[in-house]
């Protein structure tokens, strides 16, 4: 008996397309939602810790007879002028390469931020371990008309130039913090 011819020949293969409509609907909802929550310009900040008004922070009790041993102070200052950066301490003003004027004069009309970075690194190396009470303090001052952008960039350099390692008492983990943890704002007063 002959076999009946296979029906496979007559089977029609229908092409089925993936229905993308639900995915498209989801996309139409997701994209406006993400657009509204996106941040294209990232914000950041520089921290400025001001001394709190409320007297000295001495922990000495009134019964202590011996006066506290005073540590020497360096009084580091960075002055931003139209001519460039001047770095000074309590008893010294760092002069420029040519002997006078600002420590780091402007180069082609622009502030020498790289030079400032190097100079601050050298200063940190020099003062480390000398026992200055205010070794982590830097007073930033400028002429009245200097734009805030230049001040902010100088603050950036001061924050990033050097770090100091601290140990967290609770977790015993070491934390790196900017060397100049106390940046203050000051004013040039000419007599």
């Amino acid at each position, binding site marked *: 008996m002959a076999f009946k011819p296979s029906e496979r020949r007559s089977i029609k293969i229908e092409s089925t*397309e993936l229905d*993308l409509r639900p*995915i*498209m609907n989801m*996309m139409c909802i*997701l*994209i406006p939602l*993400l*657009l509204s*929550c*996106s*941040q*294209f*310009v*990232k*914000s*950041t*900040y*520089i*921290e*400025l*810790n*001001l*001394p*709190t*008004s409320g007297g000295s922070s001495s922990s000495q009790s009134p019964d202590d007879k011996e006066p506290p041993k005073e540590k020497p102070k360096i009084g580091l200052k960075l002055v*931003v002028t139209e001519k460039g950066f001047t770095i000074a301490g309590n008893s010294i003003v760092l002069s420029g390469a040519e002997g006078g004027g600002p420590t780091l004069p402007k180069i082609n009309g622009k*502030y020498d*931020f*790289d030079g400032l970075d190097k100079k601050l690194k050298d200063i940190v190396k020099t003062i480390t371990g000398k026992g200055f009470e205010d070794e982590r303090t830097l007073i930033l001052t*400028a*002429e*009245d*008309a*200097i*734009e*805030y*952008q230049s*001040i*902010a*960039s100088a*603050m*950036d350099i001061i*924050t*990033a130039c050097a770090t100091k390692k601290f140990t967290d008492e609770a977790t015993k983990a070491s934390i790196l913090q900017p060397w100049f943890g106390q940046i203050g*704002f000051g*004013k040039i007063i000419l007599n």
Partner: protein
Amino acid sequence: MAFKPSAVKKRKNKEEGTLNMNSMMDILTIMLLFLLMNFSTSGALSTKADGMTPPKIITKNKPKKMLVINVSTAHIFFKKEEIADIDQVVAQKKSFIIQALAEKLEEEKNRSEDLESKFGIEFKREVIVVADGRIPFDVMLKVVVTCGRNGFSNLKMLGNLANKQDVM
């Protein structure tokens, strides 16, 4: 005389066209990935005054929501409310304290100290200063001194994150 209906047109097969969504899906997938990368759950930190360009900053810090002082080239704003003109602040030579700002900060300090004593919400003395990069140092110094004198000693100077090459 009526024309004979066209035999060619009658025999023409009308094929059903389907919209090809593949390329559109590709675009949307790329867009979705890009937007997911820039997604922020914290929302807007502060409302920028018109035409204000905050300074470019390299240091990376993630700001949080807190009290905001806006300093544009024309006005000083406290919680979106205009409180002082920059011209007046520049003209003020005898004192470093901006009176209108000092009053607002004093009110805020009292409110925060009240909350701290009643409900134990810590008064962190923090304030965000969003200032235009073009304002003179003199104005900035007065804003900083006013904040410090009124109990807000922890200042966050807000700016836009930038590369070192863009700034220096």
